[in-house]
């Protein structure tokens, strides 16, 4: 039995109806499973919405949660993609302290991570970075020594490769 908490990426296709989100959130809450990130947006067919949920907990509980999610009338399908090869992207806006004398250093980091500067003030710089979550974590580590003022992350977006359904 594997009871150690781990991070899981779950994709859902759901009916685009009021109340769908709360029903889904309740399945996690009732089992004491913590949601780390949740992204909702309309699907290709606007009758449906796409959700990507990253949640933390043990595998056995998650299996039950996925089954409970699939039972919901509003859920077309719910899948755990942990361990699968998939495309995984996240976007983050990072505001970092950046007095003039540090600008070149910070810009080198920006360039290395193929990030973008999206705002600049006298002593701060706002960056936009995309990539898998690891990449965003890495740039944050690099920027920490300059003083990260604030971070907003989109939460993970995932899509299965080839013809596999997400």
């Amino acid at each position, binding site marked *: 039995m594997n009871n150690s908490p781990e991070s899981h990426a779950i994709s859902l296709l*759901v*009916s685009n109806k*009021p*109340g769908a989100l*709360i*029903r889904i959130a*309740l399945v996690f809450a*009732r089992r004491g499973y913590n949601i780390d990130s949740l992204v909702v947006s309309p699907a290709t067919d606007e*009758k*449906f919405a796409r959700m990507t949920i990253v949640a933390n907990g043990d595998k*056995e509980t998650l*299996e*039950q949660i996925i*089954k*409970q999610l*699939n*039972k*919901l*009338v*509003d*859920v*077309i*399908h719910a899948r755990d993609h942990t361990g699968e090869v998939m495309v995984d992207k996240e976007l983050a806006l990072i505001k970092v302290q950046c007095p003039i004398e540090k600008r070149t250093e910070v810009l080198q980091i920006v360039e290395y991570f193929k990030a973008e500067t999206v705002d600049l003030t006298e002593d701060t710089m706002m960056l936009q970075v995309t990539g898998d979550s690891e990449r965003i974590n890495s740039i944050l580590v690099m920027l920490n020594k300059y003083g990260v003022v604030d971070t907003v992350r989109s939460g993970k977006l995932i899509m299965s490769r080839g013809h596999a359904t997400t």
Partner: protein
Amino acid sequence: MAEKKRTGAQALLDVMHYHGVEYVFGHPGGAAIPIFDALVGSPIKFILTRHEQGATHMADGMARASGKAGVALVTSGPGATNTITGIMTAHMDSSPMVVVTGQTITSMLGMDAFQEADVSGITYPVVKHSYLVKNVHDIPRVVKEAFYLAESGRPGPVLIDLPKDISSAEFVPDYNAEMDLPGYKVPGAGDPEAIAKAAELLSKAKRPLLLVGHGAVISGANKAIKFLVEKMRIPVTNTLLGKGAFPESHELNLGMLGMHGTAYANKAVVACDLIMSIGSRWDDRIVGRLKDFCPDAVKIHVDIDDAEMGKMVKAHCSIVGDARLVVEELNTQLKPADTSDWLKQVAKWKKQYPLHYKMKGGLKMQYVFDEIYKLTEGKAVVVTDVGQHQMWAAQFFKVDQRFHWISSGGAGTMGFGFPASLGAQLARPDSMVIAIVGDGGFQMTLCELATAAINKIPVKVFVMNNRYLGMVRQWQNLFYEDRLSGVDLEGNPDFVKLAESYGIKGWKIKRNADVRRIVKEALAYQGGPCLVEVVCEKEDNVFPMIPAGAAVSEMIIEPTKRKLAKPTGST
């Protein structure tokens, strides 16, 4: 109906009527008045209850006696919140129900309007699905979907919250509106490979045991189960709600298992080398301490709900599907093995540890149930409330047919039995319906005596009065050194006089010698509902008993003087 304008409320009732709804139970209020207005002249009969909880239990009782969704109709706010206990009760026991709640007008939603409650929000965890209707044109589709969801797959309660401006809006309904449920799946026949594996496992087992639950009753798997049992010569045990899935008077039946099950059923659970559950969710009252639950037995699990697979017990073979279809398919593949030694052993336990009671001391509930069972020849529909009387009734009423046993299992809802019996009786006008209630639970919903009297619903109510909340007293007696707390029902009314004040015929039984005569009289009574108050032994305990959280093998068969540790189970 084309081009004819109807109000939302009229359309609601139209679709219900097309669906075959005959009765609606409920209580009116401001936000629901347009629906009550539409009831005038509708072919649907409305039963006014005295409390909304009663309405839901009646709808539930009707559903459990017929297999079709029962309907409750109430107003917004407190009217709606009074249904929560009934909704949760139906949800826990997979009973189909449609609950319609009035709601404030859409422009006032979320404004703390008079009698407004976010009923969708409050009920999310206890419904199969729910609707807040914001467009009158959605009504025909929503009502169709609600009944389909309530009755199909694993049944359950569905809520329709109907704002007053929507129920009173006029429109031309499209009664042919298609259902739109792209995410809803109803498992059917089950995976053929899994069924083949189950057949192989069953054919190899030396000491097999069948466990039948409510799902077997709901799906109507009775015939298929009987065929399987007789072909394979397997003993059968049933859950509390599985009573009636396989005839309990059959020689291969072991009665109920679990906390207050028969000793022989529990002994068989411990000793079996294979257990196949059909439509039971391995409730904690059955499996006891999970890790010690028949650890060496091969487990096969048949359930319509995939989420039940692996929830409690990890089965060697899981079949997601309708119990009837799965067992029918399984039956085509069976190869009987020799189970005669096992059956001999089981028969020996049956003889060695029978259910019994002593006739000394006060009047025993068991004796009364025994007599009712004999006098009704086991043909009555028995509806119980929750507590000691429920367990003794489960032990002493042998149920042979589906829909002949109605009881609150998963939720253990005190107050369920009496109103549920009224719904059951209306669903089954030609059957004798007997309500067995305790003095505690009965007092939670006895206001429905008026509903019974006014509508002349001929249920026969047996109030088992021991002036205690007996099951809790039993736990305090056994596990808390007899420190009784909060269990004395001092202040009980004279239940016969109470019945008479509603114009209901009543009898009182105080002595063993009167049981047969009065029960006979009550059973023969033709003048509408009647009530028998049975003044029972105050301090009797239900045995056998597996303390909550203990292993099945730790069952206490006889009353014991030894000090028992506090139970570790949750309830």
